[in-house]
């Protein structure tokens, strides 16, 4: 990459060849007002015309988003000519955008639900706009310094589209920057929204004027993420800000105690990369194959999968099984890398929690782990399940994989008291069988180096709770032993850019696929729903129902601008 040196507003800036002035400036922390720019996109859009700058030795102004940075270029973004043009353009832009929220002198003081003292129509008050104080247009207007308006406000009077459960589109607030369209078309490839009509009547909506629900929109809400105004809003989540947004948006992931990155593995399924899909699951659940069969799937519960708000949740566990069945290997991971810690850990009980903890302690912490199991075979509650639910060969394969990590499993070894283990020079004891009499008794008092965890921490025995708890315990123990407590694994490839998903026709109309079941004659006892797993076609169809709720957080990076350092506000020219 060739480096280029240029000067922007007197600050020396380094950038790489091919970047435009705007990106070079934003990267260097110099704010140039912009509303339509997106980073990392091949062709600039150049619609808002606000990023005007002057280049020494050139006539007139150019838009910083479109002009490639060149060696030795001297750029100024604060000349009177630039300020004047920018301001005029903003004033023209606001002629059809409610602008009390931009020009009111009180806007810094009012809080939501305060009484507006400025005789502003209810629908145009800043405090009734959910984007108030998070609005890029406000930021731009503050920066440019807009105190009065040259042109009267003419309302557009367009209907607000809210025929779907996720996105509210209020075209009256839209400034037609086109970011939503470019993200939808060029970046993600859904092509669900487009410009309709032309000239002053142009509006953005479902392609060919259809409502979003019929236009192939997947409601990934990336458009909401990049919208610089209040034109696009999450429905019902309008007032939610801050870090919980991810929790509220990627609901499958955050309803899963183990935090399986569901949208990502479903995307791999859609690309028919089944090994990678399984790797994504395995990043959070070491026993992906078992998980795909017996997980209680809280990700599909009410209020979890966002698709459930539209019709029915995506069959996430069924898709896990679909991927597992098509992946090449699902035995456990490679031997641990890095230096052994020299610490010895005893894990009591070989259920989901115990084995998960053992897995992470051995793999990520480099500890020597011994698992004690009282019965004849490891697996705990997993082994108690009937064969048609969890075939034993699947379980055995997963457990065998643990041997690669150097984990020793001692079956038929009843531990009478934890003291006996400390005497055997174990540094830490993790008891997962806290309901057995012996452990209970000996753990009666607080012991240094003794940890407990359970599959049924939530009151009900649960596989996925156990996995999550086991991993958490592993992190705590590792930290106790002086490690970092890091249990994060990257097993599937992570790309830098935003994935191009591609168009999904009739997205909202796709119904949940039903898993084929065993013939009645082969059914076992009263259990008449032995599921056979999706075939190729059904699995792909079901995968297409995923809304990709995590996309918006990847797309969000494309609009990041530094906070303006110096407000040139109110510089009248």
């Amino acid at each position, binding site marked *: 990459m060739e480096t280029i040196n240029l000067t922007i507003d007197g600050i020396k800036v380094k950038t790489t060849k091919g970047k435009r002035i705007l990106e070079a400036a934003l990267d260097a922390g110099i704010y140039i007002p912009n509303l339509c720019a997106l980073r990392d996109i091949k*062709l*600039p*859009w*150049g*619609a*808002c*015309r*606000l990023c*005007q700058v002057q280049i020494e030795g050139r006539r*007139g*102004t150019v*838009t910083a*988003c*479109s*002009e*490639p940075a060149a060696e030795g270029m001297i750029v100024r973004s604060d000349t009177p000519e630039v300020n004047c*043009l920018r301001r*005029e*353009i903003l004033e*023209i*832009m606001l*002629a*059809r955008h409610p602008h009390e929220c931009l020009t009111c002198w009180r806007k810094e003081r009012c809080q939501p639900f305060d009484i507006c003292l400025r005789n502003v129509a209810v629908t145009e008050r800043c405090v009734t706009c959910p984007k108030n104080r998070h609005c890029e247009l406000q930021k731009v207007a503050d920066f440019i310094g807009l105190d009065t308006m*040259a*042109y009267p406000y003419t309302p557009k009077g367009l209907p607000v589209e809210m025929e779907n459960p996720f996105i509210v589109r209020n075209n009256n607030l839209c*400034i*037609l920057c*086109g970011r939503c369209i470019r993200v939808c078309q060029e970046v993600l490839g859904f092509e669900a929204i*487009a*410009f309709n*009509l*032309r*000239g*002053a*009547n*142009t509006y953005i909506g479902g392609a060919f004027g259809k409502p979003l629900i019929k236009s192939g929109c997947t409601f990934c809400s990336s458009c909401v993420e990049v919208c610089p105004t209040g034109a696009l809003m999450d429905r019902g989540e309008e007032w939610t800000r801050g870090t919980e947004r991810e929790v509220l948006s990627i609901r499958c992931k955050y309803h899963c105690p183990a935090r399986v990155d569901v949208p990502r593995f479903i995307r791999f399924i859609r690309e028919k990369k089944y090994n990678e899909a399984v790797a994504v699951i395995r990043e959070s659940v070491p026993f992906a194959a078992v998980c795909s069969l017996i997980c209680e799937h809280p990700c599909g519960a009410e209020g979890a999968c966002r698709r459930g708000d539209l019709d029915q949740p995506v069959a996430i566990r069924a898709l896990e099984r679909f991927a597992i069945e098509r992946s090449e290997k699902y035995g456990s991971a490679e031997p641990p890398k890095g230096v052994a810690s020299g610490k010895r850990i005893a894990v009591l009980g070989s259920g989901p929690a115990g084995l998960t903890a053992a897995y992470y302690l051995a793999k990520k912490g480099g500890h020597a782990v011994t698992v004690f199991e009282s019965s004849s075979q490891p697996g705990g509650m997993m082994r108690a399940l009937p064969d048609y639910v969890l075939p034993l060969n699947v379980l055995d394969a997963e457990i065998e994989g643990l041997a690669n990590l150097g984990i020793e499993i001692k079956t038929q070894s009843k531990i009478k008291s934890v003291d006996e283990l400390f005497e055997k020079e174990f540094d830490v004891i993790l008891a997962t069988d806290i309901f057995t009499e012996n452990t209970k008794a000996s753990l009666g008092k607080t012991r240094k180096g003794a940890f407990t965890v359970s599959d049924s921490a939530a009151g009900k025995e649960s596989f996925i709770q156990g996995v999550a708890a086991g991993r958490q315990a592993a992190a705590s123990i590792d930290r106790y032993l002086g490690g970092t407590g890091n249990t994060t694994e990257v097993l599937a490839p992570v790309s830098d850019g935003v994935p191009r998903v591609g168009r999904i026709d009739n997205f909202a109309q796709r119904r949940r696929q039903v898993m084929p079941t065993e013939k009645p004659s082969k059914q076992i006892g009263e259990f008449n729903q032995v599921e056979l797993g999706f075939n190729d076609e059904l699995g792909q169809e079901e995968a297409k129902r995923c809304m990709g709720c995590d996309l918006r957080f990847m797309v969000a990076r494309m609009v990041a601008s530094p906070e303006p350092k110096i407000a040139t506000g109110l510089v009248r020219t």
Partner: protein
Amino acid sequence: MNFEELRNKAVKEWRGLWESDKPLILVGLATCGIAAGANSVLKAIENELKRRGIQANIIPVGCIGLCYLEPIVDIVRPGHPRISYCQVTPEKAIQLIEDYLVNDNPRPDLALGNFGEGSFAGIPNFYEHPMLKPQVRIATRNCGHINPEDINHYIAKDGYDGLHRALAMQPEDVIKVVEKSGLRGRGGAGFPTSKKWEEARHSKATPKFVVCNADEGDPGAFMDRSVLEGDPHSVLEGMSIAGYAVGTPNGYIYVRAEYPLAVKRLQIAIGQAKEVGLLGENILGTDFSFNVNIMQGAGAFVCGEGSALMYSIEGKRGMPRVRPPRSVASGLWGLPTSLNNVETFANVPTIITRGGDWYAGYGTETSKGTKTFALTGKIERPGLIEVPMGINLRQIIYEIGGGIPKEKPFKAIQTGGPSGGCLPYTLLDTSVDFETLTKAGSIMGSGGMVVMDEDTCMVDVARYFVEFCRDESCGKCVPCREGLPLMSDILERITRGEGEADDIQKLLDIGETIKNGSLCGLGTSAPNPVLSSIKYFRPEWEAHIIEKKCPALVCKALITFYILPDKCAGCGICARSCPVEVISGGKRLIHVIDQEKCIKCATCLEKCPERFSAVVKVTGEHINVPKEPIPVGTT
């Protein structure tokens, strides 16, 4: 068949037509001719010839440029020069056949001119016609002379000679010839054609494209249509030469769907050229192949802008994009594309045949060659003209155009379509070339020229053009999308008589912002009609805003119709013809218009007998008239 054989065959066929013992009749069947009734004339001629049993060759030809004289019929009697007759009706055509073909009377009274040497039988030479004399026809060289649907006619008139010669040269040399000619883009921007080709040639990515812009959307412009309808092969040949110079076999023509005849003739021309091996694979037996696809536009003005046009060909929404990259580096489907206008391509074959120096002999220092213009508006001889660059506006209006009808004073000329400017009388001596017109506040544009007389209101004209651009804006960039409606609102208000004192300043401010801030050529030039009009006709604007007067008596809200009491004879004609029945009166009573209900249609003004001339149209003044009808003579 090699080129010589092709040419010999074509020349033989062409000569056969002209030297046969049958009369030859040429009927102008371009859109202008058809609109004037050429189809019924053609039918009448065919029927009459059949009835009389006369054997004759009839060929349809394109527009020769004298659009106001259409339908034009040319008759060639064996052994006689070709004689052109204008404004031919079916009856006139039948008469001509009887008089000229049967009785050998060439009817000098009906004839427009002859194509022989000097005058013939009292008919002047065709090219001595004042509209044609100052013209130099290069791009339109064959329009009106050949059958556009017959490739042999084109070949016989030196057609495809340029391509034949170019294929014998190195592509670089072809570009050099064009460079020497000084040919600049005829679409309006005036970018040197050779430079564009060279850059496209040197672009590394492949495949490349040669695209012809035939999306002629300016109101009142029809240069490209005339060329496509009258001589489609010249464009195809120009494109093939460009394809050879750039080094690509891919050509596209983007034509508006509103030009069905041009599309049809292009399709025929492409088919014929392919058949004889002048288009398609291995042209004239060389390694060079070139194909042309026709893409039809759906009628958006902005699709005449290069990048929007390319998006439209790709099937996307026609919206211009920012540059760089320019289309020679990244155009159609992101690949190098050389985009030229119809007229540019039509000039190329002749430049190759006759040399760059010959072409550069016409025009000015910086603008070489000729330019076609569609001359319209308040002018005696509207039509399609081709003049050498550097001619001044006065010559175009008064010599070629014949001045303003009814000898009314000239007021302004609008060049370059809706995004050009209005130039006043004082700038009539402006030289017509790229630089001078831009300096004067207008643009060359693709070549529309609208002449206005004193009956044209400059505010109204500005309003019309701004409204046009407002409706045709693609909606992408802010200044154009939001600024033009603001301007058109103010303009509308001014023409309604509700202008405010600071409106002119507001218009100038918004206009400058749109001009400096817009993304594409449509936006940057859209305020031109307003800006130039305010610059040159400020008193008229101030009259509208301050005095609430429309000096040209056009803006309905600012004019009033009165029936003068001392002139009204009480005949009642006005009252009977008033479409809204708001004129009261009776026999021998002075009629009175109810001003509140009057719709200002001017019917009464037209209907009032000339001997009375009692109805007047005034602006900004009040005339005392009786409130109720009173007997004539009582005032």
